[in-house]
């Protein structure tokens, strides 16, 4: 009935706007070679032998003889079938390179996300529920944490845990699940630190706002146990802002892997991006930039779709269709 139609219209609308934004952003990423100083083919071949064959190869690969919209269309259809072109540095398909590097980055981002959500919500909740010294300490800590960029965190973490205490490795990816986690622990903490502070602050203020609401006092007045009140009414109702911020954090985290992966010698997408920029390997830069932007938008879409489940008042549809 109309409720289902409402939901599908909402989802469809979001998908259409996602596709439009993706088209626009991918066009920006694609046409970057035309913004670069000099003509595109010598830009793409910077620092490499500019033999006539090489020039011709690049012109064909990028369809530079065709008008810009056609170039873009060909590039895009390639991308959609997994063909990101060839890496000038590795002389290898970019798609294959990315596929090999992707798991490390996903593990790192996933690990850091778990840390951020667990620690951020925990500290934020603690600060909201324990006014006084506990709150003040957490607030000071989160302000400092939020001001600590990941590469500074790398310095501090290596100094304490790797060099002084020799507890964690500071280099390499690791093999297998446990070893991988082991190797990814310091990088994930470095990646998480500044945003844990952010999420703790938002959790705290969302919970404080909720604690001041009448329905929470009514729940207490009904003799509901304090832990249950916090879980079912305070934390539950603070989930909206927490989810939105977590989405933004995860979406923005992919580019930060460039710093952390480089610092810890992990071979993921982030460190590949840095290598590619250094080696002037633009097809790789382009592909990774596109992935980062796509990840950003897809995650934001997911948050938008999840939000009505958290707050039934948000949906433009009858909540009877919700689980």
């Amino acid at each position, binding site marked *: 009935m109309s409720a289902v139609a409402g939901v599908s219209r909402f989802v469809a609308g979001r998908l259409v706007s996602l596709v439009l934004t993706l088209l626009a952003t991918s066009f920006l990423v694609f046409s970057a070679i035309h913004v670069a100083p000099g003509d595109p083919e010598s830009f793409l071949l910077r620092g490499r032998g500019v033999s006539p064959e090489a020039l011709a190869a690049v012109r064909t690969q990028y369809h530079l003889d065709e008008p810009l919209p056609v170039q873009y269309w060909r590039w895009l259809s390639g991308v959609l079938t997994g063909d990101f072109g060839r890496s000038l540095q590795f002389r290898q398909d970019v798609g294959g390179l990315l596929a090999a590097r992707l798991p490390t980055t996903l593990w790192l981002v996933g690990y850091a996300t778990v840390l951020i959500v667990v620690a951020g919500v925990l500290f934020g909740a603690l600060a909201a529920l324990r*006014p006084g010294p506990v709150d003040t300490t957490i607030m000071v800590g989160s302000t400092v944490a939020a*001001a600590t960029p990941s590469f500074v965190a790398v*310095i501090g973490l290596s100094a304490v845990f790797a060099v002084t205490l020799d507890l964690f490795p500071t280099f390499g990816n690791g093999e297998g699940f446990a070893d991988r986690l082991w190797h990814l622990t310091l990088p994930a903490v470095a990646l998480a630190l500044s945003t844990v502070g952010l999420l703790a602050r938002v959790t705290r203020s969302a919970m404080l706002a909720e604690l001041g609401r009448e329905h929470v006092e009514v729940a207490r007045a009904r003799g509901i146990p304090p832990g249950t009140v916090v879980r079912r009414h305070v934390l539950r109702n603070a989930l909206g802002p927490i989810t939105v911020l977590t989405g933004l954090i995860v979406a923005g985290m992919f580019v930060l892997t460039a710093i952390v992966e480089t610092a810890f010698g992990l071979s993921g997408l982030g460190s590949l991006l840095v290598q590619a920029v250094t080696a002037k390997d633009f097809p790789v830069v382009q592909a990774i930039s596109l992935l980062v932007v796509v990840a950003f938008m897809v995650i934001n879409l997911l948050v938008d779709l999840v939000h009505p489940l958290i707050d039934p008042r948000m949906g433009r549809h009858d909540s009877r269709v919700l689980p």
Partner: protein
Amino acid sequence: MTAVNTAAPELVRRRLGGRLRGAAAGGWLYLVAAGLLAIVVLVAVLADVVAPADPLAVSLSDTLAPAGPDHLLGGDQSGRDTLSRLLHGARSSLLGPLAVVVASTATGILLGVWAAWRGGLVDWLVSRSMELVFAFPGLLLAILAVALVGPGLTAPVIAMAIAYTPYIARLVRAAASQEAAKPYIAAYRVQGFSGLAVNARHLLPNIFPVVLAQTTLNFGYALMDLAALSYLGFGVQPPSPDWGTMIKENQAAMLEGAFLPSVAPGVCIVVVVVAFTIVGEGIADRVARREAA
């Protein structure tokens, strides 16, 4: 029967108490943070005078020298004086973000006021372009700029100015449409004042504090992003002193137990960003209180 009620405090009070306490602490902290920033700026300007040594003077005998009377914060990987490099490094570490926030705030205000004032198609176009830019994290745009133009501070600063513009534009647009809807603006318009004059004279001063708060917070973020870029080797190029570059150069020395050359610039970054956060949030608090009053 007598009892002092110690059950879970009710929030009406706590928020009030918290706000009062916050205002007192905020006022005090705010001054300290602002004072600290003033000192950092002064040091950056007067680096030539206050630095004890030449930040570029290499002295192999002082390589990773411990802190002492000759080198208050020790020597770095190449035997350069860490303190002098820190003081000089304040320049590029602050100038980059300054350029970013000045450019992004100016552009953001223009776009925001324009969109709010003209509405319709202009508003739609500005809003959509801002959404597009939002999809590119600042650091990614900066890295893309380096990939296109090569290393150095100029291209990343321009890229980040673009990336930070939507934050200001969105804020200004919202504030300006609210302000523009107020009767006094309509009254001015009826009296025949031009849109621009009314904007400039009445709208901007009113939205200025909010924008200033966001700009101050942005300064901290831009500082972190640009330092990260230098850390990756894309920003300020060696041997020029810069906090991000210093961390990169001396990271390897940590394995030899020399922490100061990389930890000191790290501490500088954190302290300055914390100070910007406190000042920015202090301004935002003041705005909120003024609006509540």
